[in-house]
């Protein structure tokens, strides 16, 4: 059997192809039935309808978030000064003092001065106001 003669231009692949076709012809009906059965029983590619809804929901959520952030960015921000609570002027002790003359307490300039110098809290009112 060694080193057999080369009978024709046939190739191993072509020969196998021909033999396969001949074999398939013998069992044509069964092969067709097998194919039909396999295809009819095949699992179809899964449809995932929730995917569309999830994508749409995510997109809508992102859009709402973006609009909210943009709206917030455009809103005028309250200044720091406005946020600070007004400091209630402390009433100087000398106001409560009976020794301070009533005329001084009724002098409007005194209150203007107090409002201007609330933080400094002078011990005594200005001398000229006391005199006036």
């Amino acid at each position, binding site marked *: *059997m*060694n*080193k*057999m*003669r*080369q*009978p024709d231009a*046939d*190739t*191993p*692949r072509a*020969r*196998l*192809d021909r*033999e*396969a*076709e001949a*074999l*398939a012809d013998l*069992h044509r009906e*069964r*092969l067709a039935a*097998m*194919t039909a*059965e*396999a*295809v009819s*029983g*095949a*699992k*179809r*590619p*899964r*449809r995932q309808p929730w995917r569309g809804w999830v994508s749409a929901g995510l997109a809508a959520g992102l859009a709402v978030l973006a609009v909210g952030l943009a709206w917030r960015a455009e809103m005028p921000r309250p200044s720091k000064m406005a946020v600070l609570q007004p400091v209630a002027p402390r009433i100087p002790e000398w106001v409560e003092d009976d020794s301070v003359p009533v005329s001084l307490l009724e002098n409007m300039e005194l209150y203007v001065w107090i409002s201007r110098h609330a933080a400094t809290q002078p011990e005594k009112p200005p001398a000229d106001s006391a005199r006036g």
Partner: protein
Amino acid sequence: MDARFETDLTLFLRDHRAAALKFATIRLHDEQAALDVLQEAMMGFANAASRYEQDAWKNLFYKILMRRITDHQRKQGWRDRLVRIMSFSQFASSDEDADGVGQFETVDAEQADNVHGASELADAFEMALEQLPSRQQEAYLLRQWQGMSVAETAAAMGCSQGSVKTHLSRAMTALRDQLGEWIDRT
């Protein structure tokens, strides 16, 4: 989507079933067993195909087919052992088993009848292929006949590319010894 998948699947199976049947027949030496195994492989493939790209279908199909062939051979091996052990039992005399033996005898008879009609080379080629060890058969049929790449063959056979090359080289050497340079024709 469904209709297209069904069409693609049908066309694929129609294109490959003849070669796959020949492949299984060479591996199992039994046409009826090859048909049964091919049917299982087709159904397994059809169930798995939707999870793969169409480019990978051929590889997947042969992988499943070879797994089914191996399963069949294992079952057959166990059955043969049982028959041998319980030679007096019903297994040995069952109709089913008798059918199996009959098939082999029928195939042999058919082969004997066809000897005169078929060319000497065709018989020699078939015989040489059947005598190869199973892994060498697989490597030769997938690589040389089905035209798969070394990587695809390795993936289908579940082994390394180096093993594919080794199996193929041994197969080609054995076939060349029996068939001469003809086996190298492409």
